[in-house]
């Protein structure tokens, strides 16, 4: 419950500050009253910056600075608005019945998407915190071990204090939920008419998403004793080939660890851990394996339909987010039992939460119920294991897919209408695969199967006028390939350690380590998952620090080198040059922005509490980090990307990312956009397009690799650091474009910046364009510029 101090009527001028700020101080005081004296001291010690618990409009001036440099680029996905009953309105060069124009509508839809994503993480975090407080009490301490002193950097910066226990996490969620409600309200018809203000709200939503993810992951790390920043977290088996389908198989799909962790607990308690296979798809897989490394990872989202069709799973437990909505129908076709476990996904199933486990088991086995909704994770553990044990022998798993000769027969029915290919998100040659299969040549299907080039969304099957079960045919052809799919992934290690930050802080800010590449997000890839591993490899070999989460972290592990080794086996898990760091699931993304924040705090001694703008300004201008969300598809991904953007971290998305409708693009031809203030001298001076874009959609991998290398350049690079970064940029540009980058002169401040290897060629370009050496700012900043 938020408490506000009575405001003396005498000082109306500072009203707004009072309104949003005394509130928070009051809260701390109130907490202190409730807490012990020791806490009070720590409160006293931390100076609070200008914006603790910022309200929607409190960071608007920072947003406007970002948005004037990185102007929104809109690509409408639809010309119309269908949100109110005056509509639909056609916004193509017209205003709608509410007066809205096309730009504002795009920004509004982006805000809506970010809000949905933020809600997904906030709901997930709230569910975890509720449950854990319920199990362990609200005073349960947040102990991340000795190597992490600056835990919860996002919470510290935004909320203005360090969370001590689960109750503090719940309080943080109260704030997130309130902000979210205001932000969703702004999507209502009427009201906001400025696309820039919609963007400012979207950026706020993104940072709320950051907070929610940090809360969620902290809660599960400390309470479920997941790895606490261990670089040498264990390697976890991944891939369909690692699953012994002769055992009862329990499959968890989604993002919430609780049902799966309770399955593991129940197996341990009953001593059956050896007799079962517990595996997961999507983030649930990562988080369960962080909890217990005997759990296996099937793979990313893109595996879902293929794997369900294979019938290997005896029981499917679904929790929330990124789960096929037709999982019940698909599972029933394979006589696989389904258990839904959260309010987010009830599937119309009867609520069995209060039933006796054995009653639920028999109802499921006797098909008295289509499936069960069980909101008690513990009970889910018991029921799923008992059901799988009895169901497994009954199900003749190997007979669940058509035989290859049947596949061939089906293929013969193809009319060659071509619509399977037309409705494929990536226009993959499904028709060609079917035609070849007709003649017993399954290579087309194999190509689609491998590396999830076909990520089995199933749209082709829905469209087929012959109603051919294309996904089942694909799954059948893939069966034997699947056996060879034996990969691994390093268990998600959670936050980066302070000691690691101390080690890499300087080299990163100075440029000696060329950058931090964060490979994140979903698996809506344009051409399969292998490209993600190739991008990771490219940057690892160039001494970048590569961090990964979620589906991205899985795709990286699905690639084997000549000796059959995965990248996780070849590179250490340390947050350091040539380190490949699996941070964890999508909620763990918070630790990536967190690491950048910690650099500002540990290396540059910037205070965090209530100090958002200074921290973001520091990251934007000094920390050479860049995200790659190659398969971003969801509203969560939109919120995550928008959140890291507000912290000053650029992101490259794949071509499907253009469907988010909005990018933030810089204009190198507009010199004035890049002016910065040198805080050391107070002088406004010409800056560099570094980073050039804030969120960018690349058409293919080659473009993405080059752009990512460029987006790691920062104004504070030392000559040596800049040489290293430009060397990689030129090197990669030459490889893929066959020449030197034509914009290289923009990034050469003086001759010291020129990589030795390319000195001659670069100098030629510099002469052509009449380049002049530039002054180098000591503390480049957007603060104190227009808008302040």
């Amino acid at each position, binding site marked *: 419950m938020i408490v506000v101090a009575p405001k003396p009527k005498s000082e109306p001028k500072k009203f707004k500050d009072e309104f949003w700020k005394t509130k928070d101080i009051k809260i701390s005081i109130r907490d202190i009253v409730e807490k012990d004296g020791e806490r009070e001291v720590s409160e006293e010690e931390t100076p609070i910056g200008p914006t603790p618990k910022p309200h929607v409009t409190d960071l608007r001036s920072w947003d406007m600075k970002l948005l004037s440099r990185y102007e929104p680029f809109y*690509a409408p996905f639809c010309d119309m608005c269908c949100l109110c009953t005056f509509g639909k309105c056609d916004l193509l060069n017209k205003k709608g019945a509410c007066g809205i124009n096309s730009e504002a509508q795009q920004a509004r839809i982006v805000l809506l998407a970010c809000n949905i994503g933020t809600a997904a993480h906030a709901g997930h975090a709230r569910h975890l915190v509720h449950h854990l407080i319920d199990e362990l009490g609200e005073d349960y301490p947040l102990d991340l071990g000795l190597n992490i002193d600056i835990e919860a950097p996002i919470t510290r910066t935004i909320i203005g204090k360090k969370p001590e226990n689960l109750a503090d996490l719940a309080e943080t969620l109260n704030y997130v939920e309130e902000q979210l409600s205001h932000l969703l309200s702004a999507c209502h018809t009427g009201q906001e008419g400025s696309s820039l203000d919609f963007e400012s709200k979207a950026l706020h939503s993104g940072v709320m998403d950051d907070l929610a993810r940090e809360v969620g992951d902290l809660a599960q790390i400390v309470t479920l004793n997941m790895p606490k920043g261990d670089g040498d977290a264990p390697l976890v088996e991944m891939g369909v080939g690692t699953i012994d389908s002769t055992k009862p198989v329990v499959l968890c799909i989604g993002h919430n660890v609780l049902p799966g962790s309770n399955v593991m607990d129940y197996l341990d308690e009953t001593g059956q851990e050896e007799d079962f296979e517990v595996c997961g798809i999507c983030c649930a897989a990562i988080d369960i394996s962080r909890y217990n490394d005997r759990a296996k990872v099937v793979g990313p989202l893109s595996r879902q339909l293929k794997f369900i069709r294979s019938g290997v799973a005896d029981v499917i437990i679904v929790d929330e987010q990124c789960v096929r909505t037709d999982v019940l129908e698909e599972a029933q076709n394979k006589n696989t039992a389904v258990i839904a476990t959260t309010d987010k996904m009830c599937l119309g199933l009867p609520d069995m939460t209060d039933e006796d486990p054995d009653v639920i088991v028999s109802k499921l086995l006797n098909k008295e119920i289509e499936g069960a909704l069980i909101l008690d994770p513990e009970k889910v553990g018991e029921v799923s294991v008992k059901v799988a044990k009895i169901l497994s022998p009954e199900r003749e798993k190997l007979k669940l897919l058509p035989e290859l000769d049947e596949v061939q027969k089906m293929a013969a029915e193809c009319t060659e209408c071509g619509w399977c290919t037309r409705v494929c998100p990536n226009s993959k040659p499904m028709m060609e695969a079917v035609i070849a299969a007709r003649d017993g040549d399954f290579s087309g299907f194999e190509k689609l199967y491998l590396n999830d080039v076909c990520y089995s969304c199933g749209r082709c099957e829905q469209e087929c006028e012959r109603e051919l079960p294309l996904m089942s045919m694909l799954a059948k052809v893939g069966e034997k390939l699947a056996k060879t799919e034996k990969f691994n992934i390093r268990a998600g290690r959670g936050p980066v350690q302070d000691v690691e930050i101390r080690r890499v802080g300087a080299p990163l800010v100075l440029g000696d380590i060329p950058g931090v590449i964060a490979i994140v997000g979903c698996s809506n890839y*344009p051409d399969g998952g292998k490209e993600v591993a190739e991008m990771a490899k490219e940057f690892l070999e160039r001494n970048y620090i590569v961090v990964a989460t979620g589906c991205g972290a899985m795709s990286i592990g699905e690639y084997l080198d000549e000796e059959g080794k995965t990248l996780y086996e070849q590179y250490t898990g340390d947050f350091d040059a040539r380190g490949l760091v699996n941070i964890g699931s999508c909620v763990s993304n918070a630790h990536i922005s967190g690491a950048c924040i910690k650099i500002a705090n540990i290396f540059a001694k910037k205070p965090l509490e209530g100090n958002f703008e200074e921290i973001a300004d520091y990251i934007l201008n000094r920390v050479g980090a860049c995200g790659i969300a190659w398969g971003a598809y969801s509203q969560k991904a939109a919120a995550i990307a928008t959140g890291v953007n507000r912290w000053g971290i650029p992101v490259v998305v794949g071509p499907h990312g253009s469907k988010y409708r909005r990018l933030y693009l810089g*204009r190198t031809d507009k010199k004035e956009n890049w002016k910065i203030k040198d805080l050391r001298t107070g002088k406004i001076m010409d800056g560099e397009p570094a980073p050039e874009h804030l969120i960018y959609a*690349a058409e293919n991998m*080659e473009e993405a690799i080059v752009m990512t290398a460029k987006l790691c350049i920062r104004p504070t690079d030392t000559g040596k650091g800049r040489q290293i970064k430009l060397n990689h940029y030129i090197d990669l540009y030459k490889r893929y474009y066959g020449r030197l980058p034509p914009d290289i002169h923009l990034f050469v401040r003086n001759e010291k910046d020129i990589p030795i290897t390319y000195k001659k060629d670069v100098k030629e370009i510099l002469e052509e364009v009449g380049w002049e050496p530039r002054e180098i700012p000591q503390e480049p900043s957007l603060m104190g510029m227009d808008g302040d």
Partner: protein
Amino acid sequence: MANERVIPWQPTVIAGPKQALLVTPETAELMIKKAKRPLFILGPLVKEDPLRTYATKIAEKWNLPVVTTADAYKPFYEKGLNPTAYGVVEIVNLLKDPEWQGVDGKGQHDLVIFLGCIYYIGSQGLSSLKHYAPHLKTLTICKFFHSNADASFPNLKDEEWFKYLEKMGEVG
């Protein structure tokens, strides 16, 4: 479905009442003739021959300034063109700014011809220009019908498409 040739290749890119004008090589050529400041954008789907050759011939015949997207620069540079490389979202972003002076610095373009960009990101780019670049027209000569363009080839089989392109590149 009715007249599949003018249903967008990926049917769901349909965005509203406004549809692209269906064009033949002849009308496409007319549009290029009429244009004062045309620009030819070549994407990664036409990197290889014979498409690379068709595209190059069209660029040469009409003496079009060329922008390549993604990694299409190298193959066309090697083919003797002198393209400018941009990301597809970068060039679209520049084209929607009436103040931008064009690839040659001589002023914003009035006709943009797309060939070989990945369909859905190309479609998004065309949508962006449809909404925010009233100062120019867009023409697509891919083998796919692009409803977000002002004018587009219909959905075509390879043979037809190759003929169309060949026609547009024929000198004399």
